[in-house]
């Protein structure tokens, strides 16, 4: 294992800003894994730290395939995590919306450019990502539909779901989108949580990433964890359930639960008198794929996404 500095920058009042990469194996640039891009992506960073730990052992045992090089960047944004900000503290910009970056541009464009330059030559790319709507997911692999997305390889992770999504204009600056356009087979892996460490989902995600690495013959590794035949879904086909009222949200069903039409999946409670304003019900038979996780909700807020069976 070798540690490399991918980007370094002076700061007016703090230590130097550094992005570090951990390299395993040697030869062909085969797989790059990117962890926290935002300061609250603790789950993502934790998973990367565990992958670094596992790869260190695999490398010592000679279980990284000859001629294959793996890069892990546990964090692209230590500065924001250190001050509990999701985005770049100075100007509130999101590094993950600055790709492919510009090395003569603004600070976060330069950071994105340095990261992207390091990442583009890899054959496979995995980003541990978080969603722009707060909530929990069934752990899954997600790809923007660019025409280059590789669903077959995405299924090698053996996660419950593989989803695709039609890119909107604001998605064209994401790492996943640009990575695909530059010929890397890029996958965003959603590990259920963002700002909390969820050990169960972390383990599932780490196993899935190692399984994918073993199935693409990057490492020799025998997985004993649950291996799913992934359900492939487009996000546009998921059933969206919204809040008819604002109030306190009390979730009755968990992410991953199987529901039938008429099942109560949440209550919206009046914040003053405790009356149930709305019983939120499933309208289709399926699996809860996404659930809103803040304790209070706005009217019309997206509460659940259900994969219909």
């Amino acid at each position, binding site marked *: 294992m070798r540690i490399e500095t991918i980007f370094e920058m002076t700061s*007016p009042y703090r230590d130097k800003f550094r992005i570090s990469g951990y390299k395993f194996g040697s030869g062909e640039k085969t797989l790059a894994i990117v962890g926290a891009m935002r300061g609250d992506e603790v789950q993502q960073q934790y998973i990367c730290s565990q992958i670094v730990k596992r790869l260190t052992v695999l490398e010592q045992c000679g279980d990284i395939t000859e001629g294959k090089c793996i890069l892990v960047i546990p964090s692209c944004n230590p500065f924001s995590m250190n001050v509990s900000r999701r985005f770049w503290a100075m100007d509130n910009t999101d590094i993950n919306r600055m790709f492919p970056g510009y090395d003569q541009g603004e600070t976060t464009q330069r950071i994105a450019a340095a990261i992207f330059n390091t990442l583009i030559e890899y054959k496979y790319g995995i980003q541990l990502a978080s969603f722009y*709507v707060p909530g929990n997911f069934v752990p899954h692999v997600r790809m923007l539909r660019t025409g280059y997305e590789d669903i077959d390889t995405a299924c090698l992770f053996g996660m419950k779901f593989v989803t695709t999504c039609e890119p909107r*204009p*604001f998605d064209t600056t994401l790492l996943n989108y640009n990575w695909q356009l530059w010929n890397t087979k890029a996958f965003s892996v959603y590990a259920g949580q963002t700002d909390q460490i969820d050990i169960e989902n972390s383990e599932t995600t780490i196993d899935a990433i190692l399984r994918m690495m073993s199935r693409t013959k990057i490492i020799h590794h025998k997985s004993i964890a649950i291996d799913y035949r992934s359900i492939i879904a487009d996000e546009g086909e998921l059933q969206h359930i919204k809040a008819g009222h604002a109030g306190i949200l009390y979730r009755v069903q968990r992410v991953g639960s199987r529901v039938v039409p008429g099942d109560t999946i949440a209550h919206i409670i009046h914040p003053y008198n405790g009356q149930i304003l709305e019983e939120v019900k499933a309208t289709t038979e399926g699996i809860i794929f996404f659930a809103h996780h803040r304790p209070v909700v706005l009217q*019309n*807020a997206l509460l659940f996404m259900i994969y219909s069976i």
Partner: protein
Amino acid sequence: MIKTIVSTELPVDEQFRIKKNVLQNGKGGLRFCVVTGTHGDELEGQMVCYELAKLVGEELNMLNGTLEIYPALNPLGIDTIQRGIPNFDLDMNRIFPGDPHGTMAEQTANAIIEDIKGADMVIDIHSSNLYLRETPQVRINVQNEDSLVPYAKLLGMDFVWVHDAATVLEATLAHTLNTNGTPCLVVEMGVGQRINHKMCRRLVGGILNLMQSMGMWSDRKMPDITPPLICKGNQVSFLNAETSGVFLTELKCGVEVDKGETIGLIVDPLKGKVLSTVTSPQRGYLFTIRAYPIVYEGSLMARIYNYEEI
């Protein structure tokens, strides 16, 4: 007449509303919209809306048609002194035309577009951000250059910047309206969280001048409108910080600078040292200058229109 265009419940005993003021007079069928407050930290538009609503309200007989004023497209952003929408990751000006089935922010964006579309002219007022100070200017996507520049010239701003198209900018309010046949001009001026009275009054005069040219306003004593400098995207130099530090400048925007002229210094307050001297790469018109002094490598310090190369 005050109308509510979006109304939804917030969790605890509060209704979220986006309102507009509709002023109508005469037989003219044209509709003119003035919108602002998409970015909660930009406040110049508030004074422009106030002055316009007051003036036109008092002289309603001079109006021929409908003037609609939307002071706050992102009321919660203004209230919480933040650029974006509270608890939402994306810039509101990157989610248009929104989505009636999406998040609350996307539904709001969609309702705004539905309400504005079909207008004969829309002015979307922005005021830079906390970091940069801007000369009063109109920004136009190169795709709309031919149709919009003639209108922009009537607004009485110093500068018109015809900028390049970018995919991410396809989701702005202005781009969405322009591609759907509703002409929309974006005005940028001043600096975030402050109001420059002189600039605001000039824009009010410019808006009335544009309305007058459209036959929507009749006033014999209109202000003199001087034509703006018109600049293409590839004629602009961006000066980004070479090093992190404290940026000190004596300059205000809207001035001419010479090649090699000092724009400012990046200094180290601990060691008392100059880290970098920022100079102009060419003779030109300085239309953006950094207002917030702390910079990181890459922070934008100035933009200069290079009119030598025309």
